[in-house]
């Protein structure tokens, strides 16, 4: 008797009490997960394979990995060349990141739903999708044709993807800012720019920095390939030579180690800066 009273308004299924009702959110999550799982299970059967001799292939992989990572040496180039070239690659990545970041900031304040009108915001989002869809190498090619070979082509080519990425990331950070603080400043008679620089920027600074560094890291990877393609130099050219030309896995391994160490140092620096910004 007490039980039936208790169960009033409670959902049952097969005589069992349900602990959650199906809301739009749970249905969506489940649908997405089921779809992805099914797709992942069925997907492999939709692809065409050429036969693989697995034992040999795996043996070769291990052998190659051993040559690369356990016996790295410099053959064609020297350590100092490698370092200079890495510096060039880093510079390219830095330029693409910093220019992209500055532009992205202004695009992002015109994109964030809480700061900009919906029309402008949607236009920029669409524009970004288009930029992102064009492969970086095609951008670099176009800039190389128009502006000539060298750093300009490489940097601008990479910058476009940086913008597309950072604008989205920044805008989402801005959208997470407490609406209340913006409202408070507006109520005190502050104008839009005041709000951007004294409310939006300080609140999202640590996110902005961490996104920017993440992109810097990505750009560093991209710059390896793109610097070489655009004739701007960098470690990518040496990597290309030792891999595609000399097939020198030992040197590829060595260069990889150098590149990796720099990347990890970057990440550590990024973490430190972020920590300071959070606590300062």
């Amino acid at each position, binding site marked *: 008797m007490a039980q039936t009273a208790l169960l009033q308004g409670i959902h049952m299924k097969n005589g069992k009490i349900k602990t959650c009702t199906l809301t739009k959110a749970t249905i969506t999550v489940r649908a997405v997960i089921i779809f992805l799982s099914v797709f992942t299970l069925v997907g492999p059967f939709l692809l065409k394979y*050429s036969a693989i*001799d697995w034992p*040999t292939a795996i043996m*070769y992989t291990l*052998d*190659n990995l051993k*040559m690369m990572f356990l016996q790295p040496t410099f053959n*064609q180039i020297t350590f100092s060349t490698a370092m200079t070239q890495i510096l060039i690659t880093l510079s390219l990545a830095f330029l693409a990141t910093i220019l992209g970041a500055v532009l992205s900031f202004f695009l992002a304040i015109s994109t964030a739903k809480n700061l900009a009108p919906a029309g402008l915001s949607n236009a920029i989002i669409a524009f970004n999708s288009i930029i992102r869809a064009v492969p970086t*190498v095609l951008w*670099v*090619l176009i800039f*190389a*044709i128009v*502006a*000539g*070979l*060298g750093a300009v*082509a490489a940097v601008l080519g990479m910058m476009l993807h940086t913008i597309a990425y950072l604008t989205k990331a920044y805008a989402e950070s801005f959208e997470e800012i407490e609406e209340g603080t913006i409202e408070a400043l507006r109520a005190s008679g502050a104008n839009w720019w005041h709000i951007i620089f004294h409310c939006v920027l300080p609140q999202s600074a640590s996110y902005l920095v961490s996104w920017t560094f993440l992109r810097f890291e990505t750009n560093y990877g991209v710059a390896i390939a793109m610097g*070489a*393609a*655009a*004739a701007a*130099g960098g470690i*990518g*050219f040496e990597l*290309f*030579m030792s891999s*595609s*030309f*000399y*097939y*020198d*896995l*030992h040197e590829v391994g060595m260069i990889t180690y150098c590149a990796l160490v720099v990347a990890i140092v970057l990440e550590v620096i990024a973490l430190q800066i972020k920590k300071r910004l959070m606590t300062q």
Partner: protein
Amino acid sequence: ACNSEEGNAAKAKSNEPLVMVWYPNESGSEMAGARDAFGRIFEEATGRKVEQKLTTDYAIAIESIASGNAQVAFMGPQGYIEANNKSADVQPIVVPSGSSGTLEDAVYYSWLAVPKEKADGYKVNGEFALDTIAGKKFSFVSASSTSGFKVPSSSIIAHFTKQDAYKALKQDDLIEANALFPEVLFGDSHQGSAVNMMMGRADVAAFCDTCVSAYVELVEGKENTAGAIYRVKDDAAAPFNNLTGEEFVLISSTPVLNSPFVVNTSALTEEEITKLTELLISDETTNDQTIFVPKDSGEIGLFYKSGDERFVKVEDTWFDPIRKLSE
């Protein structure tokens, strides 16, 4: 007519640096010493500072020389044809000759090779015959390679379109599985294509002689002819290090024209071009050991000297045979 006009325009900015673009894969070997030597030659010829641009991207190199962003380039014959198609201002000036010192043997070779133990399967009446490659797994180098795709594919098409079954086949079709080859692979490099064949991923592979010469040695037959047997050297480096001692046989070997130095005529003056050409074919250049490295010196160079190798003047029409291949 329009050339001279633009030539004048170029003359006006002739104190701007001269941009030279290199695409290393087409140039035999990367050798800073040789590039610097060329830099000196160009500087002497034009009185302009020379900027060497090294790109790993084939399309970017071609577009640069065609648009005049670069004025001088060293590129493969196929690259030259495409640049020339884009802009008629792009013209060849010299190519490195063969050991005779003339245009006659200014060639290298595009090979079709098969593993030695299976070689007999490619013979008809004791002779190697192209017919036998139908239905095999084939490996090219890359779709943009002259000796690794253009040349072999065009000779294959030329051969098979005579047969009714393959009449409709076009060169483009060979870039993926087609009526002739159930599977088409790309090695991305000449070495890669050779490895595809030796590891059994492909039955037949196309690649060029000079690109693998460091790894293989002739064991039987005449160099660069069908039937020649090559063996991977015992001390071969990667990617052949696991394949030492493996042998393969050429079932065909086609000569391919050497790579030219090209200029963009709209971006250089007549005078500059003439001077450049003359300097390149001069005895001084010919005897420059950083450019033509003596073959037995053991050093790596851009070009090797075993006989009378030198640069010889060349005209656009010399490349017509290659041009025909793509038609």
